[in-house]
């Protein structure tokens, strides 16, 4: 029947000529980047991020009560970043081979990744606003920078982050991609007459392969969500905080430069570092993601697709680095914070010494302890809550 509708097509020609095939894109470059750079860099990011952010949380938990708006924001950023670096190795591990942790873990890990991404970025915008109010709108600052306000704002940020992540929670599933299943007409048949088998590219049967990816029930939802999720991430998770930060920190720098003080340049440098690190970390990834989103449904050659995936992998890793830089840029830059942090380290040493070297260092330790105590007390007496 079909040969009637296509008369130009003849059977003998069919038998010997196949021609060049356009197959599935294997993304070899991206794989080698993922295999070599991915695990190493990711584990370094995870270790540093875990240490830095848990130190910040420990400082607040044991040594420093959250006294100001800035404290609450910094604590929340540290919590978001910590959750992020805890979820990250699990996601990386599962993506390296077949997704082995099941559907619940798939939804939870992808969802928490998204929640922490949004909350982290929005909280950084909150910190910039807080600094703007503290420095530029100094008169209103006592009323606006109260503890209850900042708790409400943090709650709003987390709720927004969860709401923005609902599509991720809802549409991510753990499944076997159906395009890996081949329909073959064979003798041993299923009821439909078509036999389903899973094959690799070379025709060798593979074990069941699970992915943790988007899955939808209909075409329109699929197209819409596949565009909407990354677009929202770029808009709310990058451009909105970036615009807020640029506005607030520009005003802060202008105000600081107007103040006549020999130390003002240090504060300006810190502000610039915060903005520059944010842009350097997140701009490349978001530009790549934007290009990827715009050209998602277009046809690409495998080389293009591979290059785009590789760019995404590399820039994403750079973006991940931000969560281990946050403790340094925001918390440990502060004088008070550094003193508290030093105290933690020394207290840990004291504990350690009881087990490792009971006698030898005891005199030195107590000396350090006393002098730190003095410096901590000294710094906490001047009333500024503005950590910079």
């Amino acid at each position, binding site marked *: 029947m079909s040969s009637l509708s296509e008369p130009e097509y003849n059977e003998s020609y069919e038998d010997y000529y196949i021609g060049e095939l356009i197959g*599935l894109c294997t993304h070899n470059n991206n794989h080698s980047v993922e295999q070599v750079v991915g*695990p190493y860099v990711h584990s370094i990011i995870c*270790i540093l991020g875990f240490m830095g952010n848990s130190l910040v949380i420990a400082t607040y938990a044991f040594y420093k009560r959250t006294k100001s708006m800035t404290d609450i924001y910094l604590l929340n950023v540290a919590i978001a970043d910590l959750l992020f670096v805890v979820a990250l190795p699990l996601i990386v591990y599962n993506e*390296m081979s077949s997704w082995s942790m099941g559907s619940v873990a798939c939804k939870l890990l992808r969802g928490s990744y998204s929640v922490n991404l949004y909350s982290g970025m929005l909280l950084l915008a909150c910190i910039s606003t807080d600094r703007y109010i*503290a420095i530029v709108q100094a008169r209103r600052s006592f009323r606006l920078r109260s503890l209850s306000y900042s708790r409400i704002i943090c709650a709003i940020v987390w709720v927004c982050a969860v709401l923005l992540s609902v599509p991720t929670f809802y549409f991510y599933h753990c499944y076997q991609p159906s395009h890996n299943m081949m329909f073959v007409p064979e003798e041993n048949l299923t009821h439909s*007459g078509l036999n389903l088998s899973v094959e690799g590219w070379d025709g060798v049967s593979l074990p069941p392969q699970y992915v943790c990816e988007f899955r939808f029930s209909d075409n329109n939802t699929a197209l819409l969500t596949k565009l909407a999720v990354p677009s929202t991430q770029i808009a709310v998770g990058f451009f909105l905080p970036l615009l807020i930060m640029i506005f607030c920190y520009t005003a802060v720098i202008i105000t600081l430069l107007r103040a006549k003080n020999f*130390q003002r340049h240090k504060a300006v440098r810190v502000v610039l570092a915060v903005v520059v690190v944010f842009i350097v970390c997140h701009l490349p990834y978001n530009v790549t993601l934007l290009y990827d989103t715009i050209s998602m449904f277009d046809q690409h050659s495998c080389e293009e697709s591979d290059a785009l995936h590789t760019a995404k992998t590399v820039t994403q890793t750079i973006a991940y680095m931000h969560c281990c830089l946050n403790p340094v840029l925001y918390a440990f830059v502060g004088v008070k914070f550094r003193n508290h942090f030093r105290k933690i380290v020394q207290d840990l040493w004291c504990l350690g010494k009881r087990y490792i070297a009971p006698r030898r260092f005891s005199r030195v330790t107590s000396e*350090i302890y006393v002098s730190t105590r003095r410096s901590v007390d000294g710094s906490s007496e001047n009333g500024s809550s*503005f950590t910079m």
Partner: protein
Amino acid sequence: MSFAIITQLLTQQQIRQTRQHLSSITAAGTEENMVSVKATAAVITLLTVCMLATNTSAVYYECCRRYMVIKIPFAAIKGYSVQTVTEMCPINAIIFHTKKGKACTNPALNWVMDYVNRIRNKAQMVHMKTSKKQQ
């Protein structure tokens, strides 16, 4: 409030002096080195674990990104798969499995759907024959 930062910055200098004082004391401690050795060992162990865990290749994320321009001979086709945008891949495609490998084709084209129907019909025929035989 900008004044408050400046006072902070001023105290920072004093603190820095204290810190220098502190570091001169702690420099005597050898356990600082021990801690760093332990940390390095932990990092290396973790990295090794990660490296061992990654010794697999992922063929799962392969997708069709472009369609065949020329037709494939029907005789070369062993079977087909369906790639839809409702799953992880960005475009719809019919993947024909041939002797030479997989071929991505555009489901909007007539010959593609015609091939799919032919494979289905073939399967249906085989199905009817076999079920008759079994009865």
